[in-house]
């Protein structure tokens, strides 16, 4: 990795990164994988969704992990970001729901149960 040697370097790197993010038209599937999320089956949800995406040959789907999403009562939780739309957060993502998220929501844009409404503001 090239070193960052100044504040200007950092700003330049960030600009490039945020441009890349803005231009990314892929669907991003963000799975909560903190200790507790993993314990409640987050990794299984990730594996099921990855398998479903490759089986159905859906193009332009990226998987990413994150830490705690703060909804312990609804673990495992999965956030789906489709370009140009508000992110949607699903809770209680067991294997069946993970399959549905890919088959119905990502592939066909059909609703899937278990959506957790946004109840916060970010600074």
């Amino acid at each position, binding site marked *: 990795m090239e*070193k960052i040697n100044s504040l200007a*370097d950092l700003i330049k790197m960030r600009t490039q990164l945020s441009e890349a993010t803005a231009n990314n038209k892929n669907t991003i599937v963000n799975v909560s994988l*903190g200790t507790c999320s993993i314990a409640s089956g987050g990794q299984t949800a990730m594996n099921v969704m990855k398998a479903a995406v490759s089986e159905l040959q859906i193009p332009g789907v990226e998987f990413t*992990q994150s830490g*705690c999403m703060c909804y312990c009562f609804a673990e495992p939780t999965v956030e789906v970001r489709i370009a140009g739309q508000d992110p949607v957060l699903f809770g209680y993502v067991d294997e069946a729901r993970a399959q549905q998220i890919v088959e119905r929501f990502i592939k066909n844009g059909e609703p899937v149960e278990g959506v957790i409404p946004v109840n916060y503001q970010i600074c």
Partner: protein
Amino acid sequence: METAKQYRIVTRNCGFIDPENIEAYIGIRGYEALADAVTNKTPVDIVNEIKKSGLRGRGGGGFPTGLKWEIAAKNEADQKYVVCNADEGDPGAFMDRAVLEGDPHSVVEAMAICGYAIGATIGTVYIRAEYPLAIKRLQKAINDARDLGVLGKGIFGSGFDFDIELKYGAGAFVCGEETALIHSMEGERGEPTSKPPFPAQAGYWGKPTAINNVETFANIAPILLKGGDWFAGIGTEKSKGTKVFALAGKVKNVGLIEVPMGTTLEEIIFEIGGGILGGKKFKAVQTGGPSGGALTFKDLDTPIDYDNLIAKGSMMGSGGMIVMDEDDCMVAVAKFFLDFTMDETCGKCTPCRIGSKRLYEILERITSGQGTKADLKRLTSLSATIKDTALCGLGQTMPNPILSTMRVFEEEYAAHIDHRTCPAGVCSALLQYLIVPEKCVGCTACARVCPVNCISGKVKEVHTIDQNTCIKCGACFEKCKFDAIIKK
């Protein structure tokens, strides 16, 4: 739509970015506060900005962070240290783990900023070995930061050097106390020593040391990016910003929440938390874990901040919030917390070592129906003595769960002592399981599930429980489909 009650500063990135990817952090203004600090600001500017923000330590004590940094900055020494206290051990609190697993770079960046502000070049994170994923992600964050040059020599082309190492704790609760933490880091026993000197004067290896909690550090970068005035505009008069609470117990939406200081318990438990599980009645909420106290329905409209909680006989602590309903016995709850502190006392000072054991024994007597009125007096006077004489915060706050439950649930203690009953139906020694003859259909389900075979009766005839043999396990009570077994 109603306005969101939650406002996320500490958990701003948790659940949104990949914690193992430094680029994800940089993409959302990561390390800009550090780069700006070492490039455009003096250490005094940083201390002043943090002081202006009004940020207070989130580990529990609530000491003003800016003042702590200022003291460490003003103490001259050839070497100073920054320490991050990640020894989270309160029952039911897990916000530090969530931050370290979800946004480790925010802590790395804040530690470097603190180092610049106080003149330290070495930072150490004291983290418990029971947090392996947090350790893995934090270590990766540190390595990536070094590779990118945001940690190490001459950060961002300035003359400022800073690096971070990890020290693992074995999970002793007392090591969250800062002097005990320092001794543990130095390879000594994790035992506290009396203050002063405070760590900001003579801490790690006897050098000026700024010790801050994970959550405190997670506030630093946003304060510098948005300004101390912005942060000071959130919260109450004396408690600024937000607080992360780990909402647990008998509440529907268990989880981490972050709310501005001054949010009421009512809003936290009934709006964000969704109310009590199973339509039961709210009874109390324990804040501050084993060092805090119980708040009741009378306190639901109290704005939560450091000072209001102390005025109510509880404390902020690290932000555990355990909700209890009508099925919880407050004497048993006090006993539970004493059991914890009795296990976790380091044993160095007598009031804590022996006092915890004696307090526990008295509670044990009361919950088993052997308590007397004199026991209540003993609890009060022993608690007062321990609070006055214990060496560190662990001992000084240990009696709080007892004192607060005795104050607000006096009649529940009285029921255990005067009537030998447990109104919530928890203390098994005071309970009897009885079969209601009118409801029993003689299905034999209870008799089959009883582990000591103390239920007798023929099929389709009323059964009876032999009280002398019954171990009060409650298996029959759970099994009966006809509500024919009651406990009282």
